[in-house]
């Protein structure tokens, strides 16, 4: 790599790696990956945030590890190697949550383990980390994790506010005294289908703002 000019760590190109997955190339709304967990953990903000953080850490670190090893990974067993790295990271995260965030780990229960099967991870490792240097891969992982997280947080915010009348466990609706006017929480929003509908609305909004995201007929 000595023939390359050394690139600054936060070059425009690297920053773009972080920002495109937040919007134009969002893993959930544009690539439509990781939908399953987006439905499951977005009833309340807290598990959604922890899930977002966990996925971001796992994606970024696995990307880093795979990118660092990419020249030594035999092509024929690369998928296995990627899975081993992801699984290791997920188990570590799960163990840490069980030790230091027990309540959250109880709420997330099986979904932490299911990060392993989150398509965003394998997708990024195969498409990006296997062909790029560690640092850009790390940023790419952070960006994709954050892009996933941002959608999770938006969906969870709407579902928690309208479904349970709270935000991050704080009883907003009650404090505003809205219940006395006959308002009731919408139980529908607690059910998974509403998450899909909210994600659908976000996709709709995003595409109407970015016409070039719409597939050509």
């Amino acid at each position, binding site marked *: 790599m000595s023939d390359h000019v050394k690139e600054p760590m936060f070059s425009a190109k690297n920053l773009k790696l972080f920002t495109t997955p937040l919007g134009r190339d969002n893993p959930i709304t544009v690539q439509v990956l990781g939908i399953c967990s987006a439905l499951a953990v977005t009833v309340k903000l807290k598990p959604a945030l922890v899930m977002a953080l966990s996925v971001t850490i796992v994606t970024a670190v696995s990307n880093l590890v795979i990118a660092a090893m990419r020249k*030594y*990974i*035999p*092509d*024929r*067993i690369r998928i*296995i*190697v990627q899975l*081993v790295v992801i699984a*290791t990271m997920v*188990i*570590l995260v799960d*163990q*840490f949550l*069980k*030790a*230091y965030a*027990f*309540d959250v780990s109880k709420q997330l*229960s*099986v979904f932490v383990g299911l990060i392993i099967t989150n398509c965003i991870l394998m997708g990024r490792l195969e498409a990006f980390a296997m062909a790029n240097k560690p640092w850009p891969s790390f940023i790419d992982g952070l960006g994709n994790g954050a892009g996933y997280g941002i959608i999770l947080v938006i969906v969870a915010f709407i579902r928690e506010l309208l479904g349970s009348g709270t935000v991050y466990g704080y009883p907003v609706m009650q404090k505003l005294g809205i219940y006395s006017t006959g308002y009731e929480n919408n139980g529908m929003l*607690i*059910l998974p289908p509403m998450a899909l509908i909210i994600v659908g609305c976000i996709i709709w909004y995003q595409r109407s703002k970015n016409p070039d995201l719409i597939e050509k007929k």
Partner: protein
Amino acid sequence: MKEFSNRYIFIFSAVMVVAVATLLAMAATLLQPQQLRNLEIEKKKSILESIGIESTRENTESLYEKYIKELYVINKAGEKIEGVDAFKVVIKDEQKKAPEQQYLPVFKAVLDDGEKLIVLPVEGKGLWGPVWGYLSVKSDMNTIYGCTFDHKGETPGLGAEINTRPFEDMFIGKKLFESDKFVSIGVLKGGAAADDPHNVDAISGGTITSKGLEKMIADCISKYSDYLIKNRN
């Protein structure tokens, strides 16, 4: 990408597996004490919940010390067994033993107003996995004071409703005995009359969990029946 020899692939996989195994084993060992502590707090929290005391992670320990006055293990005949830590008894392991050899933990609690309660652990099977809980019984050894249930993986919105307040509150005031006969508490599909002393409503869409819960209470509490009859006042 360049070709790698089979030999290289084997060595690569072997080294990778050993490295990963070491890392995970280390993490598991280092984090275990903290994880076990969390489980202990969780258990104390559930016991407190069954006597109607809400606690947070921070004050669970102190509240537990305050309200749970005594704990011991009995056998099926209702005799106390010395030298066993009731808190450490694992119900699931006990259920594998012969009924006469099982250790049955009893937690004695005294509330602020002086009311004496006993808390009995129960454990059984739901639809997808284990369900468990604690029942607190008043000093007449018959009336339920409160209870709490939990589950490993019942369906959210259906079977998982067993650990919600409205479901648990239905058990309050129900009776375990009809004079000297143990009848337990049934979980009735189609609903139970509010004044029915031995039944509560099942959960719609959670029939198997409800049935499991009913069986769990009948199985576990019936083992205490001699003890409960003996200690009536």
